[in-house]
Structures are given as structure tokens and as C-alpha cells.
């Protein structure tokens, strides 16, 4: 009992801090169920007086969220695939089969992790224009992938370094090719690192704004993030649908982070 009382200030501070942490998204959530007039009240209501789902319906009827969702899913999954396939192969290669100059190549790759994204977006824009890829999902996918590939190698290479080599050596004696050893033996062992990398590249693809807003001006090649940005036009801000849209884009990344939180923390600790 005495112990519980002694701990109560700790609890109070933590609960207060949690409430502050939750508040922005809580407010967004309740606002998304309000009708427009209620959002504009100068004495804001803490719960919707008139509950409506209209803002969510508007996302699909007025703001093309159906199409934008498909675009975002395509962007995200392709980015994840490119990063995972190229990244794990390269990490394994760097870890097991160093070649002359491979440390330099690896160092250069890792250094690009630090590059300011907005510095890179300009030359990429010019290149994409030359290749006729502006206003396509491909350009956005390539931009996000190339910036996240170094991170994948950053996480995966040390993981492969730490895997015991004995099994692979035995497989080699049995005459398995390096590629098959990678595919059949090393990759399944690397599952935890793969999940971590999956989570981070998924989020990177899902939340991108920079490449989308630079490379694309047409709805056909726009992700959800751009749809949200476009709700703030010069003469009107669509607060209701914007709140609903904010919740809508957050749900997938939150659910994924929640389910995979163990891997998220592992990823953070490896220096994301």
C-alpha cells in the first residue's frame, strides 16, 4: 500500500504524458465524425454532437481515395519488394563474398543513408523527365527505393555477419551454388531482420510526400499523402474530409507498427 502511494506521482505524470501524446490523433478522430458547422465552432466540442460518416464517404466520392489507395498500395509494395530483394542479396554478398573494393562500395552505400533527400530529388526529377517517367508511379517508386536501399543493407549486413557460417560451409561442400545457399539457408535464418526491414520500408513507401509531390501532378499517379495535401486549396480547406483522410492513412501504419512492435524497436536500436 505504502509502495503504491509512493509510486502514484510517477503514474500521474506518465498518464498525463500519455494523454498529451494521444491528444492530436484523438482530436483528429473525433473531428472526422463532426459535420462541417460543428468543426468551425469557436468553442470546440469534445465529442461530436451530430455524429456523421459523411467525411469518410466524401473521401471516396469527392477526393478519389479509391484510386489513390490503389496507387499507394502499388507504390508501397513495389518499394518493399525492390528494397528487400536487392538489399538482402547485396548484404549477403558483402558479408560472405567480399571482393576487391567491396569495403569501399559498402562504405559509399552506407554513406548515402545520410544524404539529404531534397538534394537528390532535383537531379532525379531531370532524369525522370528525360526518361519520360514524370507523372508515373515508377518514378516515385524508384526515388523512394533508392533512398531506402542503403538502410536495408545497413540492417541486414551485420545480421548476416553474425549468422554461424558452419551450415553454409557444409552446404557448399555438398555442392550447392552460392545463390541457392543464400536462398535456401541464409535467408530463412534472417527472418527477424527481414521483418524489421519490411516494416521500415513499408512505412517509408506509405508516408512519402517528397517524391510524390515533385514527380507527379496527376491523380492517376498520386498517393494518398498527396490527396491529403490537395485538400488545402487556396480558397478552401476541407477540414472534415482532411481529418477523416488523416485517420485513414494512419490506420495501416499504426496497425503494422503495433503488431510488429518488437521488430520496430529492434530496427530503431540498429540505427534507423
Amino acid at each position, binding site marked *: 500500500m505504502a509502495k503504491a502511494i509512493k*509510486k502514484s506521482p*510517477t*503514474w500521474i*505524470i*506518465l498518464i498525463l504524458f500519455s494523454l498529451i*501524446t*494521444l491528444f*492530436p*490523433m484523438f*482530436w483528429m478522430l473525433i473531428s472526422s465524425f463532426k459535420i462541417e458547422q460543428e468543426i*468551425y465552432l*469557436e468553442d*470546440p466540442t469534445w465529442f461530436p454532437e451530430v455524429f456523421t460518416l459523411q467525411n469518410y464517404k466524401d473521401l471516396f466520392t469527392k477526393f478519389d481515395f479509391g484510386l489513390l489507395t490503389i496507387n499507394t498500395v502499388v507504390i508501397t509494395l513495389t518499394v518493399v519488394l525492390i528494397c528487400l530483394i*536487392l*538489399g538482402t*542479396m*547485396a548484404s*549477403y*554478398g558483402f558479408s560472405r*563474398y567480399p*571482393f576487391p573494393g567491396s569495403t569501399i562500395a559498402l562504405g*559509399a*552505400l552506407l*554513406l548515402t*543513408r*545520410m544524404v*539529404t*533527400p*531534397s538534394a*537528390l530529388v*532535383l*537531379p*532525379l*526529377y531531370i*532524369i525522370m523527365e528525360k526518361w519520360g517517367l514524370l507523372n508515373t508511379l515508377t518514378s516515385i517508386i*524508384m526515388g523512394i*527505393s*533508392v533512398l531506402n*536501399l*542503403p538502410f536495408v543493407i545497413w540492417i541486414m*549486413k*551485420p545480421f548476416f555477419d553474425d549468422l554461424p557460417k558452419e551450415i553454409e560451409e557444409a552446404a557448399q561442400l555438398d555442392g550447392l551454388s552460392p545463390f541457392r545457399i*543464400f536462398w535456401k539457408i541464409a535467408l530463412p535464418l534472417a527472418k527477424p531482420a527481414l521483418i524489421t526491414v519490411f516494416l521500415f520500408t513499408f512505412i517509408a513507401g506509405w508516408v512519402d*510526400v517528397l517524391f510524390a509531390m515533385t514527380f507527379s501532378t496527376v491523380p492517376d499517379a498520386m498517393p494518398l*499523402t498527396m490527396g*491529403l*495535401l490537395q485538400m488545402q486549396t487556396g480558397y478552401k480547406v476541407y477540414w472534415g474530409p482532411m*481529418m477523416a*483522410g*488523416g485517420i485513414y*492513412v*494512419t490506420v495501416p501504419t*499504426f496497425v503494422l*507498427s*503495433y503488431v510488429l*512492435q518488437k521488430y520496430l*524497436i529492434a530496427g*530503431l536500436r*540498429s*540505427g534507423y
Partner: protein
Amino acid sequence: MKRKWEKSKSGLTLTIPSIIFVFSLLIYPIVYLFTLSFKEYSPLRSSEIKFVGLENYKWLFTSEQVGHSIWLTIVFTVSSVLVEVIISLFIAVLLSKLMIGTKTRTKSTGSKIFYSIFLLPFATPAVAAAIAWKMLLHPLFGPVNDILNKNIAWFTNYPMVSVVIVDAWKMIPMVLFLVLAAIMSIDPDQFEAAKMDGANGFQEFIYLTMPSIKSVLSVTVAFRAVDAFTKVFDVVYMTTGGGPGNKTEVFPLLIWKTAFSHLHFGKASALAIVAIIISSLLGILLISQGKIKHGKSN
């Protein structure tokens, strides 16, 4: 000898796709950027690309706008990292008290709930965070003004403070998780011993907790600072857009606006080259400090 070559070859087949990918979409563009930084190119206005020598760099080093922007980026980096580290430390210490107190040290239900709550800002896309805060801090119908009983136009009157608040909200959980993990890896017997010696909470923090987590903390701070300095973009672009005037025009945003709002591709290239040099230097510094073996912040 032959075997060694075979080995190199299989290594190359695994790494070459990544190297080609990164070369054509990262290294080549940077080289291109470098050549463009000596030229004047304003697409839409004219398709002409003129060689202007060091003109862009001369502008860059004398322009008040650029100096101001770099200064703002430093202010942003220092204040957001400071706020994030101080709050994270405080909350992590409190949270660890709850977790260490339990006999088994398995996570209690309470700490599990806190964990999930702190996941939220991390998982919120920057664009959603930005619009949520725009609503919260809205001068007319935002709840923050309602609670404070004030009529403040936050993003106009206190743009930098507001931007730091949004960034801190989003990034504190990340720092918090790292610091908490470091505290939890301290041997619980040491806390017992400190208690036996009659140390109070503050003394325990100064003489036991801080020294034990010092290395993790410095790596975290270094990483956060480099990231804040080189990558601050989304939140600023979507809340203040760099304004009002250029009061929050941080460096990455300045590069983007010079290129895509003002269409000075040459000048923007020079800025981008400077940004790449700064971020590479910071990166080399981080790695060479030996504090970080890549993939393992020790």
C-alpha cells in the same frame, strides 16, 4: 587462386544489382547535380542551359537568404533534439521505475499500454501529423487556444516553436524507446545496491543511470541531430511551408523551393551540393568516431 575468383564472382552477382541501382539513381544524379551547379537553367522560362562558372556558388556564399536558412536549420536541430532528449529521458526513467519494480521484470500491463500509446506518433505519417496539429493549433477553432483561453495564431506568430512542437511530438517516442531499452539493460541488482546505500532518486539517476546509458544516449543524440539537420522537410513544408516570410525556411526546404517554386535549377544544384557535402561530412564523422559500427549502436 581460381577458387578465390569464383568466390568474388558469386559475391558480385549478389551485390551488382544494388550497385547498378544505386549508381544510376544516386551516384550518377549527384555527379549530374555537380555539373548543373555551374550552370544556369530555368525550365519553363527557357530551355537554354548556360554555363556560368562559379556564379551560383558566389550567390550561395553571399546570399543572406541562404545564411539565414542554415541558421534556422541549426536552431531547429538544437531545439528539437534538446526537447526530445530531455523529455524522453524523464519519461523513460519514470517508466523504467514501473518496470524494474516488478519482481519478474516482465512487462506489466501498465507499461505495455504505455508502449502502445507511444507507438502512435511514430506510426503517424508526417502528413497526418501535420494536419492534426494544424487543427489543434488553429487560431479560431483549435482546442489548444480554447484550453489556454487565448487567440494565438501559432504557425504565424510562433512558427519555429510550433514546428519544433510537431517534430518533438513525432520523434520523442523513438528516442524514448532507445533510452528506455538502455535503462532496462542495467543490472537490477545495481539499483538494489544503490537503494541500500541510501541513494535518492536524483542521486541514482546521476551516479548510476546516466553513466550506464551514456554511450547509447550519445549515439542517439548524434543520429537524431544529423537526421534533424539534413532531413527536416515534411513537417515544415506541410505546416508553415517555410513561412511566414522565410521564418521557417530550413535548408532542405530552401533547396526544394529554389528548384521547384522559383525554378532556379542551377542555384538549387549548388545548394544541394553543399547539403550533400555537409551530410556526408557529418556521416563520416559519425561512422569514424567508432561509436557506431553500422547496424549496431552499441
